[in-house]
């Protein structure tokens, strides 16, 4: 086994993640936290359902790099999400903004539930 040890080390050195991983460096932990929360809230444009954090397709890599750049440049979270959705559509935001038709998306289920409860109690009383 000891003879094979250097060979094993060599093989591990050749493993692709060593060359492939982009390492993001931050000035403080706040930036780092924001970066990782942002990339988990932006939808990968190429995947059916997944964030860019979970995806390694080229466009997600570009997006992550861009988000990183913007975080370092001092853009706010809203600005960054705005920047992404201007390019990749509002679909790219995992947490849809509270505006227009999205009100229905956010409050629809509660309205629906209230309706069902109302019908249920009214019918019961009769």
């Amino acid at each position, binding site marked *: 086994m000891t003879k094979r040890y250097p060979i094993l080390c060599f093989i591990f050195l050749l493993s692709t993640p060593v060359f492939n991983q982009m390492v993001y460096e931050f000035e403080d932990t706040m930036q780092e936290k924001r970066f990782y929360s942002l990339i988990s809230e932006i939808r990968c444009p*190429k995947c059916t359902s997944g964030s860019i954090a979970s995806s390694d397709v*080229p*466009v997600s890599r570009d997006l992550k790099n*861009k988000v990183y750049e913007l975080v370092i440049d001092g853009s706010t979270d809203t600005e960054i999400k705005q920047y992404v959705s201007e390019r990749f559509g509002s679909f790219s935001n995992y947490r849809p903004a509270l505006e227009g038709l999205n009100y229905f998306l956010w409050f629809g289920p509660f309205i629906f539930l209230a309706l069902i409860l109302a019908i249920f109690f009214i019918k019961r009383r009769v």
Partner: protein
Amino acid sequence: MNQSLRFLIVILPILVLGFFAKVLLVDDDIKFTNFESKSFPLFELKDLNGDPVNARSLDGIKIVNVWASWCITCLVEHPFLTKLAEENIQIIGLNYKDSDFKANGWLQRHGNPYLFSIYDPRGDLAFDLGVTGAPESYLLVNNQVVGHIQGEMNLAKWETIFLPLINKAKQGSL
């Protein structure tokens, strides 16, 4: 009361099942029909001949097709684009993350249906446009992006997505 409740118990699961069957089983090719229209991003790039691209050349009704010499599906849709070009549809290429040498060689080998191709080796313009990969096509009406097709362009997609928009634009109602 009991009657209507029983009715609901039967009909609700059927509706829910129907909804999920539609979502999961029916292959929707036209999910980009409600594309959010936006103006074409500003850019300063050269074409594949090395001449700077004039933004005015995007006026009118134009197709912008994202392609690259490394892209296999681009080769699949190439004959269809060539046919469109023969029918006087104006197509502008957006050469995506490619080298100009390889791109020009590709055009020489397979023919050039494009008025010209914007050379975007780093994919900057493509990023601003929201390109997710090659091939992809955008419909431009007077510098406004009004339609989007992801993946291979073919007759079915052309007829269901771009052609109705083009007809609308020609009537001036877009």
